[in-house]
């Protein structure tokens, strides 16, 4: 008992001391903090004091949160406009889709990738944007406008773009960067040290590229072959993850992981032992864009948010913090040459043109097939067990309970006599 008391005294000490530390740290942080200037502050004042809030649903680690001396995007937005931001995160496009399709949750801003945008447009899940409320759309480079997934840019405003590549631990893998290709993820040498995408689309794309198919194939045979390829890889995979790779790669738990280039930049900034390779055999090029779903409650406030995200300062904070490439001309100009030429974020046009593929939305049948195969792949075990186990288990349970019931009834009878 005494020990616990000591413990309590200690913790209360901890808290009082942390209170002291608090002011101290704030003083430290004042240097070289990014400040926000917007062209037209009055434009943002329309909703002030109306008690409006918007629900933003974004990828994890996909916004500048005020660390590293960069702007805290959501806080700045609230400061500028008086609109509260309810911010929550998802890990994959498919999760976002499920939450919107099946849930009653209403979001005002979502940031899906291109194939998901066209799927959502097709299924009538998005609202058309009013570009009068988004003057900053002019900041977006022309080459990111009017893409296949949203011809005429009626539904989406590009947020970031990037490619997929392979993150690796350069202390464990002694291969020149240009020799690293997708097949290394199937190399038994690295068994149990490989991480893999925990979403079907990205995982299948890798297998399909490796097999020489298109990433957008709808041929059931090819999709099935890719699933087989993934099954083959399964024994080597340490775990299927998304943003957990930050932790696992950073801590040296794993040595290989396919992931998005932007996150690789972030990781490489922090850890020396991590390198990134863009596979020569081709990869996926993605565009994540800001959209407003049908269920949005405050469309105009949401458009204000989209416009805010296209502010040069904000786009700069975003791209600097999350590491993903920006489609925003003004923000791109602000970047250091070091970033522009790091060989990861802004690949040369020749490579992008010839070696990358943009996902397109597949037919419902192909989507369903891929999902089913994905679940099946994730659930298989090396030693397949008999299909009859569960029915037999349930049957024996029923029999057992009937047996007990009968025995009990007989006992009761005996007691009566």
């Amino acid at each position, binding site marked *: 008992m005494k020990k616990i008391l000591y413990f309590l005294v200690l913790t209360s000490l901890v808290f009082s001391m942390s209170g002291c530390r608090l002011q101290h740290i704030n003083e430290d942080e004042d240097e070289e903090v990014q400040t926000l200037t917007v062209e037209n502050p009055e434009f943002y004042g329309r909703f002030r004091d109306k008690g409006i809030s918007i629900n933003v649903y974004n990828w994890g680690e996909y916004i500048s949160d005020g660390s590293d001396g960069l702007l805290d995007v959501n806080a700045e937005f609230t400061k500028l406009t008086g609109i509260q931001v309810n911010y929550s995160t998802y890990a994959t496009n498919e999760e976002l889709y499920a939450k919107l399709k099946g849930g009653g949750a209403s979001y005002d801003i979502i940031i899906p990738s291109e194939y998901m945008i066209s799927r959502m447009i097709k299924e009538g899940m998005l609202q058309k944007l009013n570009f009068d409320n988004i003057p900053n759309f002019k900041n977006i480079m022309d080459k990111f406008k009017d893409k296949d997934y949203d011809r005429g840019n009626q539904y989406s405003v590009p947020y970031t773009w990037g490619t997929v590549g392979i993150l690796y631990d350069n202390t464990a893998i002694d291969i020149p960067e240009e020799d690293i290709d997708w097949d290394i993820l199937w190399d038994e040498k690295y068994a149990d040290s490989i991480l893999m995408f925990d*979403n079907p689309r990205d995982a299948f794309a890798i297998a399909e590229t490796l097999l020489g198919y298109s990433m957008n194939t709808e041929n059931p045979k090819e999709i099935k072959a890719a699933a087989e390829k993934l099954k083959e890889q399964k024994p080597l995979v340490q775990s299927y993850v998304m943003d957990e790779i930050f932790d696992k790669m950073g801590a040296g738990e794993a040595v290989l992981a396919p992931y998005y280039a932007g996150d690789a930049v972030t990781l490489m900034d922090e850890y020396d032992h991590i390198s990134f390779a863009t596979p020569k055999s081709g990869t996926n090029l993605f565009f994540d864009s800001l959209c407003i779903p049908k269920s949005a409650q405050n469309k105009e406030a949401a458009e204000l948010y989209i416009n805010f995200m296209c502010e040069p300062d904000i786009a700069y904070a975003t791209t600097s913090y999350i590491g993903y490439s920006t489609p925003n001309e003004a923000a791109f100009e602000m970047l250091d040459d070091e970033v522009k030429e790091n060989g990861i974020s802004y690949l040369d046009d020749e490579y992008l043109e010839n070696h990358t593929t943009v996902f397109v939305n597949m037919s419902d049948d192909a989507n369903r097939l891929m999902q089913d195969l994905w679940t099946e792949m994730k659930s*298989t075990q090396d030693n397949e067990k008999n299909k009859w186990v569960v029915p037999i288990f349930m049957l024996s349970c029923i029999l057992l309970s009937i047996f007990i019931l009968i025995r009990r009834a007989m006992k009761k009878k005996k007691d009566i006599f």
Partner: protein
Amino acid sequence: MKKKLISAPYIIWMAVFIVVPLMMVAYFAFTDGDGNFTLDYIANVAQYTNIFVRSIWLAAIATVICLIIAYPASFILATMDKKHQSTMIMIVMLPMWMNFLLRTYAWMTLLGNNGIINRALGLIGLGPYKLLNTQGAVVLGMVYNYLPYMILPLYSVIVKIDKMLLEAAQDLGCNSRKVLFKVVFPLSLPGVMSGITMVFVPAISTFIISRMLGGGSNLLIGDLIEMQFLGNSYNPNLGAGISLVLMVIVLLIMTIMNQFDSDDEDRVLI
């Protein structure tokens, strides 16, 4: 005064928020996206037999381990000095008050390849062993999270056993082993049974433990259900079908466990 009427609000509440939702699960399980009757989804559940097998298997192992660890512990607790008993119970129960996500996360940090356990083993020249992302880690997570649910009912049954009975058995010539197996164990059976259900049911339906400790390649039923509703393969009808099967399994287990109990009529589980 009509006293029965006072429960009307809750009866209505139960109907709307307990009975109707379960009926909706059944409705979804037996219809397709357009609302037409179909048995496809229930039949499709058979595809995932291996997940059911794995869940039942891992949950059963975890339950048995819990029982083996918890029985001596509850016995020691129950026969302890009365003065320290309540304090000790509190200390044993305390970790249960932390959120289970945090507890599971703690094990994640311990078990990693560069985690503390492997580092400690490294100091004495062993390892590193692959501990995280295995089925063993999933079982460990279940045991750690649900062990208190086993200790509590066992303890409360054993502590009520009349000590005179034990003495009487000894007087009648039982050695201590015989006392344990012939007297204490049979008397503690109700506690064993409710402990088993209290561990097995949450263990079989958990969906975070396997994701955090099993590396996403040891899917359990809970993960499968979650995937169909909020995860990577959106298919609520299939999800409802799986939920329905899971419910049936759990109900079966409960009825079996109930059979072992005495005829105490309005005794409630847990």
